[in-house]
């Protein structure tokens, strides 16, 4: 080996060979900042531009559908006389007269439908319904799925086997077929329930179809969540660090809080977020087929469905809800992907 040329250039002094102090040694070690699970995840999420843009879009859509309607000058049911099938920003003759008389009339931003209802507010209400369905259905799925999955995993053995066989059966049933069937058949019993049984009047207000959609989700859609939760719990139950924690005398409460939650919650958040668009997807599909929300309540699916016949003349009536539903689903999907990348690297696929 050749001598390192450096050694000739360097002028060495005896004091160079004095022992270094601990501080001097430590100053050389540049440690990367160690951060906690949440902080690290949030940092990664904030860096993800696509996910952040999606989050902003979702917030905007929520403002648009939950807050704006409360001070919007029109309502979704109100049929304005003589204002049928107005193009966006167009005024009816009567409204035009009022404007000419110096009154200010709020414009129909998206025009009106064939019944003379302001389309902008209908789209807002439609997104509200779609979002509500997505969120409530997901909450139902989350509760049922995680309860079922963790019970199966916790008890194990025969209980687990039987419970999972049931899941297998439900899993192979084509869900949409049954959803169609359920929302169709549950309608009449629910109507009579709302009309005849005191205390259930709200059923008629919310709409039988909407309730049957929720029932359907509660009956069928939780299986994916249940499987996911079960496998997570099982994995944790058998994982070595939980055994290690137990061996060190850590109590159950702390194990659940520290290990189970931090390891499972990422996956749970991601699965839940990705469940929302899938629920919205299903709702819009049913509404499009006329099995979703009841008139006059609009949903994005039923708005699009209603607009199909007038597609040639009034294409915007179709494209506005169609675009919005795609945007909502896309944003939730992208946010879910972002959350997965940030909080659950092991799920990344």
């Amino acid at each position, binding site marked *: 080996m050749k*001598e390192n040329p450096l050694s000739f250039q360097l002028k060495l002094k005896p004091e160079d060979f004095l022992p270094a102090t601990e501080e001097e*040694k430590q100053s050389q070690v540049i440690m990367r900042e160690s951060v906690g699970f949440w902080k690290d995840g949030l940092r990664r999420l904030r860096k993800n531009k696509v996910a952040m843009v999606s989050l902003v879009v979702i917030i905007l859509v929520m403002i648009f559908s939950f807050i704006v309607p409360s001070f919007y000058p029109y309502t979704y049911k109100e049929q304005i006389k003589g204002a049928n099938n107005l193009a966006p920003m167009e005024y009816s003759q009567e409204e035009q007269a009022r404007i000419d008389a110096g009154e200010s009339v709020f414009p129909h931003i998206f025009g009106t439908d064939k019944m003379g209802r302001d389309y902008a507010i209908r789209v807002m209400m439609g997104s509200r319904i779609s979002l509500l369905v997505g969120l409530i259905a997901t909450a139902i799925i989350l509760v049922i799925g995680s309860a079922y999955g963790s019970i199966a995993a916790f008890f194990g053995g025969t209980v687990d086997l039987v419970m999972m066989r049931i899941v297998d059966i439900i899993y192979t049933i084509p869900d949409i077929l049954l959803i169609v069937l359920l929302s169709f058949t549950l309608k009449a019993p629910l109507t009579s329930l709302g009309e005849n049984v005191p205390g259930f009047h709200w059923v008629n207000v919310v709409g039988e179809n909407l309730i049957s959609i929720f029932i359907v989700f509660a009956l069928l859609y939780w299986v994916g969540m249940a499987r996911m939760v079960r496998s997570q719990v099982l994995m944790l139950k058998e994982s070595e660090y939980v055994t290690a924690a137990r061996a060190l005398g850590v109590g159950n409460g702390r194990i659940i809080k520290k290990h189970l939650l931090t390891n499972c919650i990422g996956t749970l958040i991601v699965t839940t977020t990705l469940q929302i668009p899938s629920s919205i997807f299903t709702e819009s599909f049913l509404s499009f087929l006329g099995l979703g929300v009841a008139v006059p309540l609009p949903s994005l699916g039923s708005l699009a469905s209603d607009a199909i016949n007038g597609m040639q003349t009034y294409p915007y009536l179709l494209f506005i809800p169609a675009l919005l539903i795609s945007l909502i689903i896309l944003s939730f999907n992208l946010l879910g992907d972002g959350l997965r990348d940030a909080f659950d690297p092991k799920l990344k696929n």
Partner: protein
Amino acid sequence: MAEYLVDIKNERLSFFTPAGEVKALNDVSIRLKEGEVLGIVGESGSGKSVTAYSLMGLTAHPGKLLGGELQFNGHEIEHMTEKEMRKIRGNEISIIFQDPMTSLNPVYTIGNQITEVIKLHTDKDSAQAKARAKELLELVGINEPDKRLKQYPHELSGGMRQRVMIAIALACEPKLLIADEPTTALDVTIQAQILELMMELKDKLGMAIIMITHDLGVVASMCERIAVMYAGRIVEYGTADDIFYNPKHQYTKGLIRSIPRLDTKEHERLIPIEGTPVDLLNPPAGCPFAPRCDAAMKICLREMPPVTNFGDVHYTKCWLSQKEEFEKGASHE
């Protein structure tokens, strides 16, 4: 014919990650004659595997060779195209990986995976390749080779799979076999069997071996030359005797002290090396081991230590050795 089978000179290699340049290899030089066994020892991330992979042209993305010469069996590896490299890989140089559980393709039979490499590098037909595969399985000590050839990897045990990997590696009688921690993932009893098999095959076939490991016990029993790596540098190089009986670098000494020994007194404790390895994204200016070194001096933190030679083979990069030279020089004046 070149003097050395492998001659790596001043290799520098970095991984360009989104977080920045990771200097994986800094000024690494390795020489190996035909039929010799070299051990490369070091902890995870010290650059042992990267060195070996670069010799096969298998540097993973985003790694890039930045400088140095890599000569193997008369080939200049750093100038070769991917197509030329393919002719060498599996033929003149072979490799055995750490984890036999994942290194075999799960959807093809053992026979398929062995004959594949035979058919690629020789002009044997299917029947001949199969006969050769059978011969190889017998060579690596697998019984019932006919049955094994038809089995899938998941039907074999870890030790068995590693034997299959060795059979694949030896299929074309390579001049150099790289063993990348070949026994780390195996049970202790199987480890000994595999190492014994490798030595046996080396004597039979006469190939050179580069044994990459973090286990000094493994190199002690097998290797003629040993390179100790730390943070992408070779900090000490020598014969097995040099390294074990006359270690010069503080890191090597630490490694040797941390080996459990049967001949020590009952209450003597193993001495671990304190601290954590350096972050290669932000390597320190001086000796990378200095922050963990008991004997670190002021200069160690400031400047990279130069090479100090002890005889033809043995050398180290440590300021302590330089200090001795310096003091010797000073006393002469």
